[in-house]
């Protein structure tokens, strides 16, 4: 571990990442998913971020939208660069909705954060039979209490999902409607 105060790390990391605008309108996500956006988002890119696209409205320390498009059997769903000691979570084509949610829960709690499932129900997603779930997450590193919303479906053995989380105070209610709209607009090509 470098001897720099951790306060500086966020400044340094900024140098490695880049942010691009996602314009409203139709947008392709991976090879098989399409969404229709009612407004712009910010897409964050950095080396070794894992297979999900990461979008944000207020900045990563505040809110995050994870977009999974066409995740294949046995593919690890998160970055593996850090924490060689930590358990990895991979998708398996035969997974049932509760198992997929448990997989996301595992990923979100790798750092000691606390997850609580609030709701899990069947729902169409992208034109496929899928599920929708709501959760709360207490972030370990800074104790922020987040609310989360997820949508998922497996199509031709591949996983398609959206996960959005933001502080339960002010921010989650502020952006939730747009995420719901995005999920409703999603189309998975068969």
């Amino acid at each position, binding site marked *: 571990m470098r001897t720099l105060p951790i306060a500086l790390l966020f400044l340094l990391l900024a140098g490695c990442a880049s942010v691009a605008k996602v314009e409203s309108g139709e947008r392709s996500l991976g090879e098989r998913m399409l969404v229709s956006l009612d407004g712009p988002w910010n897409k964050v890119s950095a080396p070794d971020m894992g297979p999900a696209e990461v979008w944000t409205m207020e900045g990563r320390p505040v809110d995050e939208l994870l977009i999974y498009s066409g995740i294949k059997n046995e593919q690890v769903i998160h970055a593996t660069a*850090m924490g060689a*000691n*930590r358990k990895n979570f991979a998708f398996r084509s035969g997974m049932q909705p509760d198992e997929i949610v448990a997989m996301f829960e595992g990923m979100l709690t790798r*750092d000691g954060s606390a997850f609580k499932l609030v709701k899990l129900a069947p729902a169409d997603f992208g034109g496929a039979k899928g599920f929708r779930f709501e959760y709360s997450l207490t972030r370990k590193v800074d104790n922020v209490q987040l609310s989360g919303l997820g949508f998922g479906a497996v199509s031709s053995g591949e996983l398609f999902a959206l996960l959005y989380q933001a502080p339960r105070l002010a921010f989650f209610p502020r952006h939730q409607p747009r995420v719901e709209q995005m999920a409703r607009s999603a189309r998975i090509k068969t």
Partner: protein
Amino acid sequence: MNRRGFLAGGCACCVGGLVPGLAAAQAAWEIPARFARPEAGSDEGGLWSMMDREEVRLRKSPFSLRDPKLQAYVQDIACRLAGEHCPDVRVHLVRTPLFNASMAPNGMMQVWSGLMLRVDNEAQLAAVLGHEIGHYLARHSVERLRDAKSRSAFGMFIGMFGAVGQLGQLGLYAGMFAYSREHETQADSIGVLLMRKAGYAAAEAAKVWENLQLETKARPDGDASRSPFFATHPPAAERQQALAELAQASPGGVANEAPWREGVKPFLRDWLHEEVKRGQHEESLALLGRMIARSPAAADHRWARGEVYRLRAKEGDLDRAVADYLAAIAGGGEPPDTHRGLGMIYRARRQSPEARTSFQRYLELAPEAPDSALIKSYVEELRT
């Protein structure tokens, strides 16, 4: 008593003889008088202030387990162990599914839910708390922090990551901050002394470590150092031997299993659930196997092990899971999730009538369950 004088005197007594001299050393060591707050400018004072700030953060943290009854129960045990130092000991319970307890030089004591899940009785809890109080009374943290590297690691560990730090960092820094062998031996010795004074059976102390070893040995990689507790308290075979000898030297005392079971009953299901969620199947199986052996009729443990088998899903596991779920139901008072777990397995095996029955029972027992909508849809599917 002058602090430096005590340190010099106390340690000279204890460090020398190690295992054979332990019993004698124990007799020579005296519990010091209550500590005064050190000056801010001293190395200890600096540590103290930092711990005070961490304690404020801990109090406000959502990970803090704030049940007044349980907190008072554990505080009382810690108090009786600490004797005259009781007013200086402040117990904080923390929601984290790992075995850990710690005591900072300012009197702040943390007890993690993973520890409370694993001890069988008050005496075993007292063994761990007594051990931590031993480190506190013998000023080990401060000694450790005379070593700059340790100081930095500890500071990073506490100051930057918080007393309830990020799990990833915990292992890294905790290892660098580990107590020395001499410290461990002395804390063991003091811990047993305090246990006996408080009326607890010293034989329970060795059992705690035995049980923990069972779990860590079950890991596929057999690596103990990932446990934050073992990172700061390096385990050593001689210590178990020493503890057994100490126990033999002072027989008698109570274990108080019944009041402990009563006290943690309202939390057991949650803690078992969090243990299962850790996804460390082999360790969980070792732990649950032990708990089931102690109380074969307890439904909660059977349910939990059924969940672990179901999630691990190796060859033969699903059958084992079904067996455990059925045993939980036979025992009575099973968690509603038992039926859910059974339903999932039956559904996967295309045993539709059984799956439907199980899911329906789950919905009956837990109509407000978070996934009730999903399970209802399964029931509908299974009708066709």
